[in-house]
């Protein structure tokens, strides 16, 4: 039974000047899950995170974290929340270990050198603990940001575009770190532009655009609901019409009958099975084909489709 850890209802934020960044957002996050929030630039992802973390003052709605109202119990709640913002933001002249200790203290946790060492070692920062942050590479600086966010052992961690602008190797390294955090029971909400990241990491995915949540569901359920397979058979002799055995499948003819196009499936493998059946049927009917191209839709295709055809769903 999923245990809600974050419950957002009717959240609104209108900035000075009238820009509506959040427009009635409803969202529930369960303990222990990794939730990916996808959306284009300006969709409201960072404003949503900022509203929960205290960086942004919402203009409407209610946020409950760990069952407590954020508006009244913000001090208790924030002790258990960690945030890794998009930008590399810290005192560049300070030492790594001092900045991590500072973060732990600021969130009200007692000094614990063993825990600080554990965090730094887990992020391969222990050897750099006495280095000034400005001397580190971009990737290492991003790790320092994560170390600072983890220093007080948060139960709920927000990662705002954690791998934006980092190379592939570091991105995969970050994913490993996130996996380790999941194993420790930390609930993670990450925003990302990289669909691959959501496919790789998330248990559930939410799509936000223009301040509204368009879709929230299990990653696999989204694929099953909206995923599809596309196949193109190149027919040797043009067909005037679809052969009768094929009419039960989602197929049609293109390019003067020389191309048989299949669009179907549900992201669970059904599409691949039907394409194989079609190939057998064509052979059985004596229809020669010289080529077959298949393509599975990705979360990215679904994401793009959603942005063009908004779907209204509840969280």
């Amino acid at each position, binding site marked *: 039974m999923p245990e809600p850890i974050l419950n957002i209802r009717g959240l609104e934020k209108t900035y000075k000047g009238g820009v509506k960044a959040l427009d009635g957002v409803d969202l529930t996050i369960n303990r222990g899950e990794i939730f990916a929030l996808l959306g284009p630039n300006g969709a409201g992802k960072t404003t949503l995170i900022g509203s929960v*973390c205290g960086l942004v003052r919402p203009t409407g709605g209610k946020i409950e974290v760990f069952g407590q109202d954020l508006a009244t119990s913000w001090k*208790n709640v924030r002790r258990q929340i960690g*945030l890794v913002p998009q930008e590399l933001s810290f005192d560049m*002249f300070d030492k790594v270990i001092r900045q991590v200790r500072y973060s732990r*203290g*600021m969130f009200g946790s007692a000094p614990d050198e063993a825990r600080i060492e554990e965090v730094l070692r887990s992020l391969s920062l222990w050897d750099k603990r006495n280095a000034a942050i400005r001397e580190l590479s971009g990737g290492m600086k991003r790790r320092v940001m994560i170390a600072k966010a983890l220093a007080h052992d948060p139960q709920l961690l927000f990662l705002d575009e954690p791998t934006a602008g980092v190379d592939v190797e570091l991105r995969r390294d970050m994913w490993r770190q996130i996996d380790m955090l999941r194993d420790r029971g930390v609930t993670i909400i990450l925003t990302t532009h990289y669909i691959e990241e959501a496919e790789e990491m998330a248990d559930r995915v939410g799509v936000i655009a223009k301040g509204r949540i368009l879709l929230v569901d299990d990653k696999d359920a989204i694929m099953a609901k909206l995923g599809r397979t596309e196949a193109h058979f190149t027919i040797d002799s043009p067909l005037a019409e679809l052969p009768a055995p094929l009419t039960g499948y989602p197929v049609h003819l293109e390019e003067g009958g020389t191309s048989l196009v299949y669009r179907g499936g549900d992201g669970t493998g059904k599409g691949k099975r039907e394409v194989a059946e079609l190939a057998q049927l064509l052979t059985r009917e004596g229809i020669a084909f010289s080529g077959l191209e298949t393509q599975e839709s990705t979360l990215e295709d679904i994401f793009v489709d959603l942005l063009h055809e908004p779907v209204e769903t509840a969280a």
Partner: protein
Amino acid sequence: MTFNARGTYAIFKNELMRMFRTIFGSILSPVITTSLYLVVFGAAMGDRMDLGGVNYGAFIVPGLLMLTLLSESTSNASFGIYMPKFTGAIYELLSAPVGVAETLIGFVGAAAVKSLILAAIILGTAALIVDYSIAHPILALGYIVLVAASFSLLGFIIGLWADGFEKLQIIPLLVLMPLTFLGGTFYPISALEGPWQYVAMVNPVVYLVSGLRWTFLGESDFPIMLSFGATLGFLLICIAVIGWIFKTGWRLRE
């Protein structure tokens, strides 16, 4: 909601360590500048000044101390809160379980403590250059603490208000410095010609210098309670302004 003592200490320690990382600019520079004033105006020219029996070097010590206290308290506190804003590191403060009290005690407390350390060094250095004594040491300490806290609060407000390095310097350099120089640092207000005495009374720093001078010399241009009351009032106004800033999120959560 419980007070986050660890968070307060973390901010306080971090700020103090930051200041000591830049020890030349934070400590040595103001000490050297003040010492030069004392050497030039106190030791070298002091004998030529007639202040009715009061040694001129001893006369300017509280004024110079006030000059340093005002500028250093203001600039330390303003820089302390402006830098996280500038680098973006303010996100951590805003997302942490710290409120107005923790933030003020952490940032303003550190700036004020640094000013007090600086004041102690300046007084020690001054003792090597000019002959002075403190008539009311306990009151002097209390007054220095009050001034350091008040102007650290002002600095904190400036740091929140500033959206560029230039603005950080405007009030310390273009307002506080001239007012302090014209506020009786180097001369008694009674030495001014008739109408200029009334003009000087509009300058709020006059009352600060006068108050500190009273604790050192036992006499000054204005009653000590007037100076003390004005300083305390200023401190309360600063706290009220900062409370409003945190309540509305002005320049913090916009």
